[in-house]
């Protein structure tokens, strides 16, 4: 395929005797949606961390848009267009939901004004043509968070924190968005609503999405392609209907009890 946006080449990473990534080779097409599955410690988050610059691989390369980003700092990678959300939402806890987003858009504004000290809060951000406040309000609305606008982040419920975390990541309009377990810690009823809302909001800009997820129903509902991790290796890289029927995936990840027949029902 020609429109490869991200290319991981032979990534290896070990923590002492534990192999977290063993020769990971992945090509990601622009605009695609990838689900990353695997048991705890299988190497999903290590993979995400190596792409976003939190961890440097022992060997191998990460190529993004034709550029080697393997050794770049997280903020440099964000500037190039890869942003992430976190398994445990990373918010500015003393600030309100609105302020959390204002800080995020404020950073965008600073970046576009070359970090000028005189960047104004009420001046439009060049690439958006809108003010920080307006963009923050719009983001709250898009993610259904308007009612939490003036609530301090510290007191927000789990699902709302997840959404706010993702809304913040979207403020930089990433080319690739990595979501680390967007529905973990969220009640079963809320899971689907949250993921539907996220995917709707995120996909408007044709953003490439890679999400780590344990709920196979959500994976088959949203992912176009599944990367199944086991023991630091990718044991399946297929469309969900194929990957989730793979004997090794069933044995190591999905479990025998999870009937493949259920996939795609939601």
């Amino acid at each position, binding site marked *: 395929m020609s429109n490869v946006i991200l290319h991981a080449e032979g990534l290896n990473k070990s923590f002492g005797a534990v192999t977290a990534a063993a020769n990971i080779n992945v090509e990601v097409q622009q605009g695609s949606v990838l689900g990353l599955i695997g048991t705890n410690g299988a190497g999903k988050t290590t993979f995400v961390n190596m792409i976003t610059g939190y961890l440097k691989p022992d060997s191998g390369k990460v190529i993004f848009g034709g550029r080697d980003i393997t050794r770049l700092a*997280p*903020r440099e990678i964000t500037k190039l267009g890869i942003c*992430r959300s976190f398994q445990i939402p990373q918010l500015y806890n003393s600030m309100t939901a609105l302020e959390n987003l204002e800080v995020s858009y*404020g950073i965008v504004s600073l970046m576009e004004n070359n970090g000028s000290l005189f960047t104004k*809060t009420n001046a439009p951000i060049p690439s958006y043509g809108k003010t*920080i406040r307006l963009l923050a309000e719009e983001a709250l609305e898009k993610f259904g968070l308007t009612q939490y606008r003036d609530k301090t982040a510290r007191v927000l419920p789990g699902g709302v924190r997840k959404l706010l975390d993702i809304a913040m990541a979207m403020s930089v309009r990433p080319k690739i968005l990595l979501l680390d377990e967007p529905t973990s810690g969220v009640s079963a009823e809320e899971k689907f609503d949250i993921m539907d809302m996220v995917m709707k909001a995120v996909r408007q800009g044709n953003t490439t999405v890679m999400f780590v997820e344990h709920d196979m129903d959500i994976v088959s509902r949203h992912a176009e392609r599944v990367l199944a991790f086991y023991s630091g290796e990718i044991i399946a890289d297929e469309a969900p209907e194929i990957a989730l029927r793979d004997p090794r995936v069933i044995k190591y990840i999905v479990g025998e009890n999870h009937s493949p027949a259920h996939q795609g029902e939601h």
Partner: protein
Amino acid sequence: MNFDKSIVRLAIVFIGILLLSGFIPQWAMFMLTIACANGMAVLGLMLFLRAGLVSFGQALFFCTGAYAAGLLALKFDITEMTVLIIVSGIASGFMAYILGFLLAKYRGIFFGLLSLAFSMILYGLLVKTEALGSTDGFNVPAVTIFGWLPDLSVVRVAVLGMAFLIILLSVSFVNMLLKSPRGLLLTAIRDNEIRAEYMGASAQKTIHLFYVISGVLAGLGGAIAAVAVGHIDPTMSFWTTSGEMIFIAILGGTGSVIAPFIGALVFGIIHTIAFSYSPNTWQMVIGLSLIFVILLLPNGLWSLREKFGKRKS
């Protein structure tokens, strides 16, 4: 410039003080000027408190500013206060810029102690430098203000007027800065530095930038103190001076750019009264008042205003 209501009120208070200066005793005028000088240094300290950092070495820049002004007047015969102030700001800002490359990498106790270490190095150097008067320091010649050499009877008012002008310009600038995206980022770094980095912001660059601004503010304060007292010595860089600044910052609170000046004034009053009643145990009074503030007003005196304002509305 951002003409916040509270800054306009501050300007009105300043004009009122200057108009009534004939009725204010000289010692009170002096205390006010020193409060202005300390308040400037504490304004710089407040920026760090917003980022969750405590500098135990703010006196370094206070002292640098004072010595820059004093040396310029003494050795180069430049006695124009506006020039002394500007040069002090540049000198302390430059010092902060250089040290900032190292300090901006550290957080928490390391940031605090490194800043303390640098201020004590300066103290040690000054104490050992005979040419600068060693522990005695030296006298700063009388200054002119916009070319005018004020008479002894009005010099206090003139210097205080200059201090007010510098404060108004500084608080307007800092207020604008704190409301700008860069200022918001400062609080964001305190809350979650890693997140801010993952959003594309450089925490180190932001802290370095505010370190320089903080240094400039303290330097301006030092220059005001040097001119007002007419004498400078190495204790301006001693750790107890930094300690007093932290005390003032806690006393005033971080709720507003005006809070450091209220804190500095109240500190001046407590200090003056305590010293006049018990010259040997005034530190005990200062200590007790610190305990009082931490227990009853953990967000400083400024929080009183917020509480009072809310009740009224």
